[in-house]
């Protein structure tokens, strides 16, 4: 296993081979192969129902694949999964739950906690995680009294508190006000200095400005460890030609603001 502190960008942090998943006879993932290197920032795009969330859930061990293997940091999935953290698409919790931002982030340490209570080191790591997403000012706030963007940053902090090697994000900006999207991606870019990130989205334009490489997923995965999407990849993934992405890197198309001129 590679030394965690001295990883370079040629070290593999995750290897998926021949991964197939089906639900009730419907094939969701079909022989997925994916090699992820240290400090990769992969955007996985694809249509809804193309298996993006399923892939993340398989990596996390929340579902059992039919075939294939996942190894994390050179270990089998079960032994390596504590090095992977996950930020879900929608916060699945109850907004009224009596819990503060601080308690939620500290929860990120639950897998590594020894003894009954969190140690000073656990608290230190949780605080660092909060600072990295610039949410340390709202530590005592009840979790339901945050905006969508703030809540998502807290979810990232909770994931970071576990000190992961790999961070998985599922449609991270689905509940974020579009004004704050750029700020959110800047934080991810900053985190990518020492953490490998895999981000799943159906919105190509939103992710393409920030990720290093792009993969297309629709049952099968098309990935060449490159940022350029070939027309072939898109057509395979979406089953239709996509004209919007003419020059490799797509642009966000904005409606002209007629009313503001003047």
């Amino acid at each position, binding site marked *: 296993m590679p030394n965690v502190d001295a990883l370079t960008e040629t070290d593999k942090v995750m290897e998926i081979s021949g991964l197939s998943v089906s639900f009730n006879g419907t094939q969701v993932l079909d022989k997925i192969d994916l090699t992820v290197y240290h400090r990769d920032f992969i955007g996985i795009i694809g249509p809804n129902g193309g298996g993006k969330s399923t892939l993340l859930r398989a990596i*996390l*061990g*929340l579902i059992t694949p039919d075939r294939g293997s996942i190894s994390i940091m050179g270990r089998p999935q079960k032994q390596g*999964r*504590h090095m*992977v*953290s*996950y930020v*879900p698409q929608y*916060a*699945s*919790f*109850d907004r*009224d*739950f*009596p*819990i*503060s931002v601080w*308690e*939620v982030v500290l*929860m*990120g340490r*639950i*897998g590594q*906690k020894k003894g*009954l*209570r*969190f140690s000073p080191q656990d608290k230190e790591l949780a605080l660092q995680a909060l600072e990295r997403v610039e949410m340390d000012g709202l530590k005592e706030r*009840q979790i339901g009294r945050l905006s969508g963007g703030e809540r998502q940053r807290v979810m990232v902090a*909770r994931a970071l508190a*576990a000190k992961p090697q790999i961070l998985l994000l599922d449609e991270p900006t689905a509940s974020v006000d579009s004004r704050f999207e750029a700020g959110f991606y800047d934080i991810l870019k900053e985190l990518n200095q020492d953490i490998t990130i895999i981000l799943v989205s159906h919105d190509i334009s939103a992710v393409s400005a920030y990720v290093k490489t792009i993969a297309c997923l629709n049952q099968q995965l098309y990935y060449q460890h490159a940022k350029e999407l070939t027309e072939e990849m898109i057509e395979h993934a979406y089953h239709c030609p996509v004209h919007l992405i003419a020059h490799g890197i797509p642009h966000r198309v904005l409606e002209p603001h007629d009313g503001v001129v003047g």
Partner: protein
Amino acid sequence: MEIFTYEFMRHALLAGFLASISCGIIGSYVVIKRIVFISGGIAHTAYGGIGLGYFLGINPMLGALGFTVLSAIGMGIVSDRSAQRSDTIIGVMWAAGMALGIVFVSLSPGYTTDLMSYLFGNILVVPVMDIWLMLALNLIIVITVIALYEELKTTSFDEEFARTAGLNTRLLNLVLLVLIALTIIVLIRAVGIILVIALLTIPAATAGRLTSSLKYMMIIAIILGMLFTSGGLLLSYVFDLPSGATIILLAGIVFVLVSIFLSIKEKRPAMMEKDIGS
């Protein structure tokens, strides 16, 4: 006060306090996890155990203890395996447990006078033996919650996250259901099977409106439970009313008053903002 010179009154107060500790702690989990229905199911299957106790000639509370723990585990497994119809199955177990109790009682020899006290509670006639049982169950509940506090909080808050962090959420949920079963046994003597669910939820729900910390929610719920049981006891003595029902009515009235007070308080700042805006 004169009434507290009676030994049965002191026992009743003690039983009320013991009931308050477990219902404050476990009731908080029931409220935040929204598992009131499954808790009601566990409570009603207790009647089957009480009937079995009569039938076998043992302490009905021990029969109820066995029945509730088993039904808690059964309901936990059912709701885990078949998420869609679990409420139906819990409803069936709820009714079947009660029916079993009625059959057992009818088969039992002799006249069963104090059966009503298990259904509606009679805190004034709690045997000393049952107070020891309540104390022992309270100890188990408190120690377990202290040991698993962070794990239970994480699982209650976000089960999927807890699983990805490597917690055995299935086991933790079962542990919580068994703790609910134990709490129900503690509460039966105070308010009876029919009203258990009220004492399990009202103090915790009231406390939840007053704080946004689980720890303080539990502490406030315990204090409220003590106020409700001792206040209800006093009122039932003064006005010669059934103790269990009086405790629950007092709790219900306080819950409604707190809710009204808080909704007025929340509205007022909003109205003032409006005035400034216009």
